[in-house]
C-alpha cells in the first residue's frame, strides 16, 4: 500500500471513528429521519390511494428514499461540523504541520461520509423491510440507491467542509443547515409532484433533489431502471463536484496563509 493511500485510508477511518464514537452526534441524524418515516407512513398511508399518486404499495415504499437522503444530509452536515471542530481545536494544524498531502485532509473527511452514507442507507432499508417494505428492484436496486445516497453524502460533506474551512466555526456550519433542509422540503421527496399545484410544484420541479429522489424511488417502486438510476447518480455527483470544488478553493485559501 503506497504512503498516500495509507494516509487517505487513515484519515477516512479517523473521520468515521470520530463519527461513530459520538453517540450524541450520530443518533439524532439517524433517528430523526426514521421517526419521520414511521409517523408519516402511518399518517399518510391512505394518500397512496389518491388519484394521481404514483403507483406504490404503501406510503413507506414511496418515502423510503427520501428518508435515506434526509439521513445522509443530516450525517454529512454533522461531519462538516466535525471538520470545523478540528480547525477550532487545532487538530487541523497537526495535519497541516505534518508532510501529509493537503488534499487528503479533505478527501479523508469526504470519503468517510461516503462510507457512512452507504451503510446508513442499508440501515434504513433494513428497518423498512422489518415493517413490510417491498423493494421491486431487489438487492441490486437497494445497492444502487445506497450508492446514490453515498455519493450525495459525500457531496453534502464537501459542501459542509467548504463552509467549515472557510469559516473555521462549527456553529457556522450548523447555521447553514436550514438552507439545505428547506431544499429537502421544497421538493417532491415527501409528497408526489403529481399532486402538487402552483409555485410549490414549480419550485419542486426545479429542485434537483426532487429528480434525484425520484430516480432512486423508481428502483424501489417500479423495479430496476438504469436510466432513472443514472439521472439520480449524476445529480448526486453534481452536488459532489460543486462541493469538492468549493472545498478545495476554501482549503487553498486557508493554506495560503501557511507556507
Amino acid at each position, binding site marked *: 500500500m503506497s504512503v498516500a493511500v495509507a*494516509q487517505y485510508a487513515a*484519515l477516512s477511518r479517523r473521520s468515521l*471513528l470520530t463519527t461513530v464514537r459520538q453517540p450524541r452526534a450520530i443518533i439524532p441524524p439517524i433517528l430523526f429521519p426514521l421517526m419521520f418515516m414511521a409517523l408519516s407512513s402511518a399518517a399518510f398511508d391512505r394518500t397512496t390511494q389518491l388519484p394521481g399518486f404514483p403507483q406504490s404499495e404503501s406510503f413507506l415504499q414511496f418515502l423510503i428514499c427520501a428518508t435515506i437522503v434526509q439521513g445522509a444530509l443530516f450525517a454529512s452536515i454533522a461531519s462538516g461540523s466535525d471538520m470545523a471542530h478540528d480547525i477550532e481545536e487545532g487538530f487541523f*494544524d497537526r495535519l497541516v*504541520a505534518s*508532510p*501529509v498531502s493537503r488534499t487528503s485532509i479533505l478527501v479523508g473527511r469526504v470519503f468517510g461520509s461516503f462510507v457512512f452514507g452507504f451503510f446508513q442507507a442499508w440501515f434504513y432499508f433494513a428497518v423498512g423491510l422489518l415493517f413490510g417494505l417491498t423493494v421491486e428492484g431487489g438487492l441490486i436496486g437497494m445497492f444502487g440507491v445506497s450508492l446514490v445516497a453515498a455519493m450525495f453524502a459525500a457531496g453534502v460533506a464537501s459542501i459542509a467542509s467548504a463552509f467549515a474551512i472557510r469559516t*473555521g466555526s462549527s456553529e457556522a456550519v450548523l447555521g447553514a443547515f436550514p438552507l439545505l433542509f428547506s431544499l429537502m422540503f421544497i421538493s417532491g421527496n415527501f409528497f408526489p409532484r403529481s399532486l402538487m399545484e402552483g409555485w410549490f410544484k414549480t419550485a419542486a420541479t426545479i429542485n434537483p433533489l426532487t429528480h434525484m429522489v425520484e430516480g432512486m424511488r423508481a428502483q424501489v417502486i417500479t423495479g430496476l431502471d438504469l436510466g432513472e438510476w443514472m439521472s439520480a447518480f449524476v445529480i448526486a455527483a453534481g452536488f459532489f463536484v460543486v462541493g469538492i470544488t468549493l472545498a478545495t478553493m476554501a482549503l487553498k485559501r486557508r493554506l*495560503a496563509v*501557511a507556507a
Partner: protein
Amino acid sequence: MEANQGHVVAQGLVRRFGSIEAVAGIDLEVAPGEIFGFLGPNGAGKSTTIRMLTTLLKPTAGRAWVAGHDVVEDPDAVRRSIGVALQDAAIDPLMTGRELLRLQAILHGLPRSTSADRSQFLLEMVGLTAAADRRVGTYSGGMRRRLDLALSLIHEPAVLFLDEPTTGLDPNSRFALWDEIRKLNREGGTTVFLTTQYMEEADELAGRVAIIDEGRIVAEGTPDKLKARVGVPTLQVTIGHGQDAIGAESILMRFGEPAPASPGAIAVRLEGGASGMAAVVRALDEGKVQVEGLELHMPTLDDVFQEATGRRLEGAEPTTEPQPQETTPR
C-alpha cells in the same frame, strides 16, 4: 546526521495581521542540539514566530530555515524534519493514545511495521502504557501534554518545537515534562525550540534564552549571562502608610541605584551585594522610617525582562495576539 539538520535560523522575520505587527523583525540562530527558550508574556509574538517556523503561517517579510530548508520554499522538507507540539494540545479526545500515535505515524509516512514498535517505545518513554488504549478524553492535562510530546517525536525529528509545553500544568506534571525534554535532548541530540511565559521554565531548561516583547527580541543569551547583566540583588522596602516616602527614598539611594518597585514600595539595587542589607535596615531605623516589609530579590530572568521592557513578566498584562486560526484568511 547532516551538519545543518538541527539548525534553526531566522532573518528579519516579520508577520503582520492587518495593521497589527505581531512579529516585528526577528533574527535568531539555534545551534543543533541546543535547547532554546523563547520567553515572553502572552501576546509577545511567541506563537506567531513558532507558527512561521513550523510552516503553519507565511511570514510577511524575512526568511527562515529549519534543518537547512527554507520554510517558504520547501515547507514539506521542513515538515519532515520537525516535531511540533502546539499550545492547545491538539488531540482528538475521541481517539485513544495508541490510535493517535499510529495515525501520526501514517501522516509521516512511516511503514506499518515500524509504527507499532515506535508507538510502543514512545508510550513507554512518556509513561502512558497503561492509558494507551483509553480515549484521550479521559486523560489529565499532564497526560495529554506527554502524549502530545510523544506524537511530535514519532518520526524522530531533528528539531522539536514546543509551544508553551507546560502552561496550565500542576508543578509535578511540569517537572516530569521537563525531565522528558532534557532526556530527549541529552540522549537523542534533538534540538528543542520552546516558547514559554514562565521564566523559571526558561531558566531551568534552556541553554540559551531569547526574551521577546511586542514582536521583538529584547535580550538574548545564556540565563546566567542575562542575569549577570542585571547584576546585583535588589532590595524592596515597603514603608508604612503616611510615612515620608521621599525621605526613605533618599536614605535608600545611598546604597545603590533605584530599581522599579511594586506600588507603595521603594527598591534599590544593592551594589554591595546581599550582605549590604543590614546596613540599609540600620540606616532606615536611624532615619525613623517605619518599615512594613523587606524583600530581597536575587536577579531572575524576570528582572532581565523588566530591565529591557520596564514591565514585569509574571502577571504582565496580556495584550491580544491575533490567533491566525481564528481569523478568516484574506
